[in-house]
């Protein structure tokens, strides 16, 4: 039978573990934004070679399940002589996978701008650098905010997979809790509630930002 007290008891250890969920997904998206910006620049470059590099990067990272990528990175790092805690591998994998999606989000946002926006800048005699920093990027970034928030929500959920390599985040902690109390239903339900709470907050943040950015 469902035990309310063990359900409630599970929240304290899981909330502690949520720090790692937030760390992995938060750092993941932050680094993903940086790498994604580079990939996006390559994808929009005039050189065919750079465009191909970007296309392969995006296609590989979007084609391979995150769990598989996580294990590849986890076993690759020691082989190439990098001995770091599992959480570093988790953050690296998350960031790299996120970069593929983020670069596509930004590319899409930039391509979605009407051509006339840059034409007006060119016609007035603006330098390409100014038309990027003043006209294109401010609009593309605002346009991409809802999708970036959505990506962050996806990452929070995907971070449950790093439990597999032993990072003590929400899912791993709920497994531990279930193992100790023999109450898996309550432990996993508590985990689900915690994820839901985080994601509802992020969704609300997204709506607020979208509302603020809308001109």
């Amino acid at each position, binding site marked *: 039978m469902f035990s309310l007290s063990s359900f409630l008891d599970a929240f304290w250890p899981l909330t502690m573990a949520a720090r790692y969920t937030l760390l992995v997904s938060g750092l993941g998206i932050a680094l993903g934004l940086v790498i994604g910006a580079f990939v996006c620049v390559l994808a929009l470059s005039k050189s065919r070679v750079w465009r191909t590099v970007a296309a392969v990067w995006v296609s590989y990272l979007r084609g391979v399940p995150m769990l598989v990528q996580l294990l590849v990175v986890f076993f690759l790092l020691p082989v190439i002589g990098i001995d770091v805690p599992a959480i570093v591998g988790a953050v690296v994998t998350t960031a790299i996978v996120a970069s593929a999606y983020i670069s596509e989000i930004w590319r899409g946002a930039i391509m979605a701008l*009407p051509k*006339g*926006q840059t*034409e*007006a800048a*060119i*016609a*007035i*005699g*603006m*330098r*390409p650098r*100014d038309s990027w920093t*003043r*006209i294109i990027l*401010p*609009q593309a970034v*605002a346009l991409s905010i809802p999708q970036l928030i959505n990506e962050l929500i996806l990452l929070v959920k995907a971070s449950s997979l790093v439990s597999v390599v032993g990072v003590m985040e929400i899912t791993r902690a709920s497994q531990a809790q279930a193992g100790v109390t023999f109450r898996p239903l309550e432990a996993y339900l508590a985990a689900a509630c915690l994820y839901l709470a985080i994601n509802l907050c992020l969704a609300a943040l997204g709506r607020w930002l979208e509302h603020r950015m809308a*001109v």
Partner: protein
Amino acid sequence: MVEASSVEIRKVNKYYGQFHALKDIDLTIPPGKVTCLIGPSGSGKSSLLRCINFLEEYDSGEVLIDGQLIGYETPGGRRMAPRRLRQMRSTIGMVFQQFNLWPHMTAQENVAEGLIRVRGMRKPQAMERAAEALTRVGLADRMGNHPSRLSGGQQQRVAIARAVAMDPRLMLFDEPTSALDPELVGEVLNVMKALAAGGMTMVVVTHEMGFAAHVADQVAFLEAGELVGVDVPSRILREPEDPRIQSFLRTYRERNVI
């Protein structure tokens, strides 16, 4: 009064792949006068207009602004240095069919942006100048609004102010009233008339025959990439000799009879 530019178009050809969009166009646009480009859609009039500030690259021939070739170092030669091209463009104002205002900036910021980035003006001066330009087009009370809060006619007047604030010697209008609801066309045409009266060289692609008839100094008719005729409006619009112009005007009148 700033001096007004002249434009000399000589043997200009333009291809889109196999499609021959502009065929050996010769046209002289005198300083301080209004030239209207008319013709059926797809005739190449917008392409020709966009060749004047090299937004569209022509493949052969010459476009000279005050005797200076735009886009190329020499006729048929290398592309012009970007910096020089930008410098030439900054003296040519352009107004688009879709306004192309920057939606993340207020009306005033839209006008000031070019002054700051291109003219190197300081922000306070640029904003002051933008305010003057907006006042001249009758939008003194709308300066702080974003484009989405303005009607189409107001947006297009902001776009004109944005171009005029740069002190251009030549203004290009690409179907400036085609995207507007009929009741908003007048306010934009009035601003354009005032500009014309001030002695600005203007090239206007338009479907507004009334504007062409009353404001233009010369009207050029294009069809299928060819310049069919150029003349003063009274002759070309009232007693055209070429059957292609006659049939275009007949269709136009039939469509506009209520």
